[in-house]
């Protein structure tokens, strides 16, 4: 394994920055940039030192550093953490110096990957850490932490136990036909199926909500051209600092930013304006907009409050059918409200709406409140999150349970009914490892008096 380094803190103006080095050559690098004998450095102690360029020997910064000896480090390898002065320049210079001293630049997520590869954490936990470093709200962190504490495994374990309990009933009938075991109670079995299916459905639903919540709800600002979408977009960004730099849309037809709306990290899209057109380029833009709307959780639809002829069009109806959360924003109130309020209210029915001036930042905070309310409505307070991999496995498990249920309802014989159930257990084994066969037998012996 090579030795790698990376700046661990975000780029930009800050008082301090942290640069990390990990890998087998860490001690060698330590020697080259600090001119210190690594054998005289005690692990896990803070040292203050000048940091030199390994070739030019020029002093780059005065820093503090901590050395961790393998395996007692984050990655499980020798590791060095350097706390330097912040800003754009110094950390970069230090990184360059370390690379000169023999390290490679780390790939994104490499430190956690090494932690995983060195057996410090399992896959579930690795996925969680990845999410933790991306999570930026308090509730997001607590969801991820709950996974670290194996909350998911526990919940999943409960479902697995119920499946084993059901399998046990069938297996006992198969393996002990001459043992005076009471026949299967169909109603009891149905109950067990229903409970498993319901629990799994909830588990998947909540887990997926959690995942979406971690990634942040997506908000699309859309509406006709010149209704003030970009102004509103900027208005939403202004008070809270965006944490990821601007990502231009591939076809330059939209931009998006990660934005805090109150406590929640969201991703806001500023889409291309909708206008009846014959121009090809714009048509592509509209298609993109439709795609964004498709993926978004909340649609902020903008109308011009200062235009007399403004009215709701088919667009809103379309959105309602897609079961998106919609907020209608009447913009440009700084120019006076000229729309027919009564009529619009009638047309809007139960759709939320708000009057703002994006330009003068009027009522933007109220809009934020509204967005937060919608977020809570969609996601509730998720307790945990499932990664896509976990989600996929759970959905497969659910399909198998349903298949078994169908076979049971058709009164197929036990060895057929139980087949998908056992397949589901071996799938679940990928998430939480236990010896399923022994557990089934154990359950049989616990529950039935069998054997001669």
């Amino acid at each position: 394994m090579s030795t790698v380094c990376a700046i661990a803190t975000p780029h930009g103006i800050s008082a301090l920055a942290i640069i990390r080095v990990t890998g087998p050559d860490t001690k060698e690098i330590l020697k080259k940039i600090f001119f210190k004998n690594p054998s005289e450095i005690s692990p896990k102690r803070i040292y203050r030192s000048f940091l030199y360029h390994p070739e030019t020997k020029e002093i780059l910064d005065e820093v503090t550093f901590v050395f961790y000896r393998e395996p007692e480090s984050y990655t499980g390898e020798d590791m060095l953490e350097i706390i330097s002065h912040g800003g754009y320049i110094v950390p970069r210079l230090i990184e360059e110096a370390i690379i000169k001293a023999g390290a490679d630049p780390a790939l994104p997520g490499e430190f956690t990957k090494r932690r995983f590869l060195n057996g410090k954490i399992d896959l579930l936990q690795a996925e969680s850490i990845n999410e933790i470093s991306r999570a930026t709200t308090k509730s997001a962190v607590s969801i991820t932490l709950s996974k670290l504490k194996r909350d998911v495994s526990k919940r999943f374990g409960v479902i697995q136990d119920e499946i084993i309990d059901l399998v046990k009933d069938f297996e006992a009938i198969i393996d002990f036909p001459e043992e005076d075991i009471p026949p299967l109670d169909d109603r009891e079995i149905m109950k067990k199926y229903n409970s498993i299916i319901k629990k799994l459905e909830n588990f998947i639903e909540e887990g997926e909500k959690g995942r979406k919540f971690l990634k942040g709800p997506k908000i699309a600002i859309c509406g006709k051209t010149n209704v003030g979408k970009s102004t509103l977009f900027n208005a939403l960004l202004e008070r809270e600092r965006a944490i990821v730099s601007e990502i231009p849309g591939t076809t330059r037809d939209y931009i998006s930013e990660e934005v805090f709306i109150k406590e929640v990290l969201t991703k806001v899209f500023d889409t291309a304006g909708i206008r009846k057109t014959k121009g090809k380029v714009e048509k592509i833009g509209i298609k993109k907009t439709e795609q964004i709307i498709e993926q978004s959780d909340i649609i902020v639809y903008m109308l011009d409050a200062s235009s007399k002829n403004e009215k709701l069009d088919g667009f809103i109806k379309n959105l309602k059918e897609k079961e998106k959360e919609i907020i209608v924003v009447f913009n440009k109130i700084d120019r006076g409200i000229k729309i027919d309020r009564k009529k619009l209210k009638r047309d809007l029915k139960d759709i939320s709406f708000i009057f703002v001036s994006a330009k003068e930042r009027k009522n933007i905070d109220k809009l934020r409140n509204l967005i937060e309310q919608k977020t809570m409505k969609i996601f509730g307070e998720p307790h945990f999150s499932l990664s896509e991999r976990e989600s996929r496995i759970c959905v497969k498990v659910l399909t198998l349970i349903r298949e078994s249920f169908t076979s049971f309802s058709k009164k197929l014989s036990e060895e057929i009914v139980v087949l998908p159930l056992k397949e589901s257990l071996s799938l679940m084994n990928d998430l939480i490892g236990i010896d399923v066969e022994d557990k089934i037998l154990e359950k049989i012996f616990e529950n039935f008096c069998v054997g001669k």
Partner: protein
Amino acid sequence: MKYDVIVIGGGHAGCEASLASSRMGAKTLLITLRKDRIAQMSCNPSIGGIAKAQLVKEIDALGGEMAKNIDETGIQFRLLNTKKGPAVWSLRAQADRVLYRKRMQEIIFSQKNLDVLEDEVIEIITDKEVKGVLTTRGRKIEAGAAIVTGGTFLNGVIHVGLIQFRAGRMGEFPSKGLSNSLRKPGFKIGRLKTGTSPRVLKSSIDFKEAQIVEGDNPPRGFSFRNPFLNVNQEICWMVYTNQKTHKIVDELREICPLFIGQIKSIGPRYCPSIEAKVFNFPEKERHLLFLEPDGRDSDIIYISGLSTSYGVDIQYKILRTIPALHNAEILVPGYAIEYDFSDPRQLYPWLESKKIRGLFFAGQINGTSGYEEAGAQGIVAGINAVLYLDKKEPFVIKRSEGYTGVMIDDLVTKGVDEPYRMFTSRAEYRIILRQDNACERLMHYGYKFGLINESEYKKFLEERKIVDEEIERLKKQRIKREAALKVIKDNFKESVTLAELLRRANVKYDDLKKINKDKELPSHLKEKVEIEIKYEGFVKRQLKEAKHFEKLEKKKIPEDIDYESVPNLSYEAREKLRKYKPLNLGQASRIPGIRATDITALLFYIENRSISNK
């Protein structure tokens, strides 16, 4: 004296092992404590039952003797689980205990290449590989391979109530030196317990108070040679214990060897003594007992389900509470027996010990229980002893090929903490491992090793051809909806193939006769056609899964692997892998607690290593 193979012990494992090796042409010596007790049934006078019948049929397909032996000496045959699908049908037979062992003895005594010696082995002479054995009567016999099939005889101790004495079986001496001599080269020896029920005088039973259990008509046979048998069948009976029985059992807890610490070893959960049943399930109002005749003309009745460690006086008290048995006279009391076993994790999946080349273990000494489990291991060990001497690839039955494979893999991978009994739930490919297709799964091996003769194999292939052609025909031939409706009311399209029709839940092969007159197949082949068509989809699904696992099975784990240096393994996985020492990734994946991610990590490590070694 010099032999190729020495088999130590003449029980069900020893019989199959010595017959297999001698029939494969190896000069074989069977050493037993008593010639007249070869193939003795120590416990129930019965063969087969759920999952065990599958084992017997597998022994048969490989060219073993057990199936033939019970077909000739059985006195009642019943197919169990017929209300469920054919994958879990299992044949069970009552044996005539005396005739069973006598017939097997005749086969053994008349087998070419096979000698029998009455003696006791006290030591296996080794030098990293087997050189021979030493006996208590001072014999030193040379051999290239040895198979230990000691059953419950190694340091056996019998408990009847508070009385305990050394014995291998009631009325027979134990083997004393052998397990100590195995400890010397470092074999891990443990202790297990099992039990058996009282045998009572037939004329002392009041059968009016018992329910009759009759055999099937016509009875099926175990061997592929006997789809059906022509035999006069005896009857068995059923009785139940009651509250009075349970009161006695419960009140005398303080003099029960099982509860006062006299018996320390672990007994099988699936074979609980009456005291275990009563203590563990106090809410159960009655427990089922079978009264099984010990033989056709025998005056002994075996009370199946009443195994106990209580003393004779209490056994009488227990019997008195059951109306049919209120006057029962005990001939042999029920008893518990403790014995030495060798941790089967010390074996390769072909039953050879990892420590000493050419030394094989089979049967109860590996921690199993049951005649069928023993016999299946016996034939595998016998075959492999010869393959070892011939320096050929060992013979391993895959988990997807047979219950025998499942059992041996379970034993050598996970070890045992109670006597191991076969259950269908242990097999992940239950739909494939049926008693009706044992020959399809395993007979080609029996033929290859010379244990199945040419004419029998040819006959099997011919029958197979008939079945295949018939299945093909049913899949091709279409009938109109009106015709199909005559067979069963269902939603049919315009036309339907006969196979599709047969696949419906309540349609039998013979129902097709109504609309489709064709040549008549023998009934056991009709059954095969029906089973294979009905199960086809599920079989395909399981085969696909089996194939996936086979890939893992082929990935060998290097013997010198240092799990410390495998990145990405959890601490727990590392510990377990070090302890269990799996041979390949498939085996590793079946160790309790090993996860898919651990297997992936191992796979990466092994692949990278083999690349960097190139």
